[in-house]
């Protein structure tokens, strides 16, 4: 919950003075918000080329005409990010565990995991999509599919697994070693301690940053349009070019917001809750 002052809501304080101050600050917030947006709106609308911009970007008729078309193309984006998210959740954890294997024997394993995470986080997603979707797919190796959706899913999975593995790893490292020691002292093996004690706690702790990465992933599904996959962005793009009007992009932006806003709010709520717990000294 966000109070008008922009700070996390304070617990209700029962002194009358504070109450009245609270009421007044809400009033001030409402008035200043109205004034702020009215001024901005007035500046925009009264600018000389506003009618032109309105026609090109904010055409209500075009908006409603193309919303269903783009919406049905968005199903491809949804399918893409749902499949990718499941894969990323599993593979990310796998990579994180590989990276946390102790001892010199596992050095090469750790090295490969580190190199993977560094490369796929360091190269722009679009380049990876190009390299895999055109490069590898273009090799024409028998048995390897040529389908753009397949390569889109592979590219996004590889990119986001790299991010998510880092998130998991931070989570695993944040669990105090005494937890693993307590598990080992019962006779659990290292793997069992990880499986039953460390990972369950780590996963709980990293849910907010994981959701953050998922928001990024959902938005990045538009990048795979460059592979020729006709998803929502590509559809909006085609329509824009045929009618010389940018409003279809606005329609797609709205669709994205409908999907990502709840997730964004949920993430912020979880982060704020964790912070409160931390401040309260609770575990």
């Amino acid at each position: 919950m966000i109070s008008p002052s922009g700070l996390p809501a304070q617990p209700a304080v029962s002194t009358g003075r504070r109450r009245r101050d609270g009421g007044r600050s809400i009033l001030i917030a409402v008035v200043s918000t109205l004034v702020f947006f009215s001024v901005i709106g007035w500046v925009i609308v009264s600018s000389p080329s506003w009618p032109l911009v309105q026609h090109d970007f904010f055409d209500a008729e075009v908006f409603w005409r193309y919303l269903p078309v783009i919406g049905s193309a968005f199903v491809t984006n949804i399918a893409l990010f749902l499949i990718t998210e499941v894969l990323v959740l599993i593979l990310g954890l796998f990579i994180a565990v590989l990276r946390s294997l102790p001892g010199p024997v596992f050095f090469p394993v750790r090295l490969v995991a580190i190199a993977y995470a560094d490369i796929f986080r360091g190269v722009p997603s679009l380049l990876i999509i190009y390299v895999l979707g055109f490069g590898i797919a273009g090799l024409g190796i028998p048995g390897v599919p040529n389908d753009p959706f397949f390569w889109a899913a592979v590219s996004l999975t590889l990119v986001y697994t790299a991010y998510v593995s880092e998130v998991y790893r931070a989570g695993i490292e944040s669990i105090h070693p005494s937890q693993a020691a307590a598990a080992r002292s019962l006779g659990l093996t290292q793997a069992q301690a990880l499986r039953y004690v460390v990972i369950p706690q780590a996963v709980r702790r990293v849910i907010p940053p994981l959701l953050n990465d998922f928001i990024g992933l959902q938005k990045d599904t538009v990048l795979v349009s460059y592979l020729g996959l006709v998803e929502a962005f590509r559809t909006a793009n085609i329509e824009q070019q045929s009618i010389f009007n940018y409003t279809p992009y606005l329609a797609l932006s709205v669709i994205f917001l409908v999907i990502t806003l709840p997730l964004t709010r949920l993430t912020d709520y979880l982060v704020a809750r964790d912070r409160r717990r931390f401040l309260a000294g609770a575990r």
Partner: protein
Amino acid sequence: MTAEVVRIEGLHKSFDKLEVLRGIDLAVREHEVVCLIGASGSGKSTLLRCINLLEAIDAGRILIDRTDITLPGVDANKIRRRIGIVFQAFNLFPHMSVLDNVTLGPRRVLRLPRDRAEDDATELLARFGLADKRTEYPDRLSGGQQQRVAIVRALAMHPDLMLLDEITSALDPELVAEVLSVVRELAAGGMTMIIATHEMGFARDIANRVCFLDAGRILEDGPPSRIFSAPTEPRTRQFLDRVIAAGRM
């Protein structure tokens, strides 16, 4: 004469350049309760952690039931399941209910079926006054209750030996008694225990033997009646004087 449960010979342990244990010799017989006393940093915790192989040792031998557990190739997991350890900070698993905390070892290590492990755990919890806390999560328990759960969790593995590391020092004074009474009950039941403690009164009551640790060595070892009333080493006397001055005895 009862059998020896633990024998430690010439145990050395360093952390980097800091030599924490400098030649420990100690033998503990079945049903014996040995209390380790000594200043903070004298190596009590480290010694306990070495005994159940949570720390690798640098030199010396540790025998459990006459088997050298420090030899290469010994399965440390097999050894640990027979030695229960309870930590100062409880170290309960916060994401598990009390029952799951207690049954984790029996189910995953001893491979008991769930219902058997849970029956066993329920019985143990009831014995220590925790029957109504089975489904509770650790953060909803008092410190004393948490520590009792930690003791039950170790007992659920039916260990031959219990290591208790200052298990009351993180507790509010009014909660200390409930935990110590659990330990008394274990001693009365014949449990072999090595107990690191700052509670001198408790050590005097419960211990068959008290070992005074000083800078990584056992400086003095004897029955509590002698150690507490007529220590032979000046350093032991100094330590006890300081403890008395601090009002902890």
